[in-house]
């Protein structure tokens, strides 16, 4: 029962992620693409935790934590590049 509920929740989150991907493709400036990429990464972190619940693996929570850390560092690097170049 809870596995079906988790898959439904993942489906709802995937719709939001696809809308963000449309903005990544059609965004007029680079900042729009960076914002949409950040939203996609945050939704992906939540979906990794849901995947750990569906597959019943405790180790996948570590994957989500490392993904969150790398998302933070990568987005700060992208912001620095947008502000003053390499």
């Amino acid at each position, binding site marked *: 029962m*809870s596995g079906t509920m988790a898959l439904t929740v993942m489906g709802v989150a995937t719709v939001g992620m696809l809308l963000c991907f449309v903005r990544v493709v059609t965004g007029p400036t680079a900042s729009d693409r960076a914002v949409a990429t950040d939203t996609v990464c945050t939704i992906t972190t939540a979906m990794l935790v849901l995947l750990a619940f569906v597959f019943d693996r405790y180790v996948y929570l570590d994957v*989500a934590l490392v993904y969150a850390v790398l998302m933070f560092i990568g987005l700060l690097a992208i912001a620095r590049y947008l502000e003053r170049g390499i």
Partner: protein
Amino acid sequence: MLHVVIGGVVTGIGSLFLLVGGLGVFRMPDVYNRLQAGTKCTTLGAFLTIVGVGIMRPEWFWKTLAISLFIVVTNPISNHAIGRASLKKGVALCDRSVADSSGSFKGYEDRS
């Protein structure tokens, strides 16, 4: 069995916030509006989703709480950095904007 129901409800509400965040990024007219919609909705949505999984599995609760608190702390910081970079770079406001408190653009009223 009660904790599964409570965790399921919390996770469902969080996924709705994630959907609304994606819709805001798709729909808003301006990079700053997109930034605001994406940041607020996805921060709360990811927090509720991850904590809901921790409520459904009580032995995972502290680790999921650590992940969600990390997202709550770091997501506004990175989005603030992107917003400041686009403001310094001079990404234009949309046509329907009426005020600019930062003073970076000409032709807008200062309502600060």
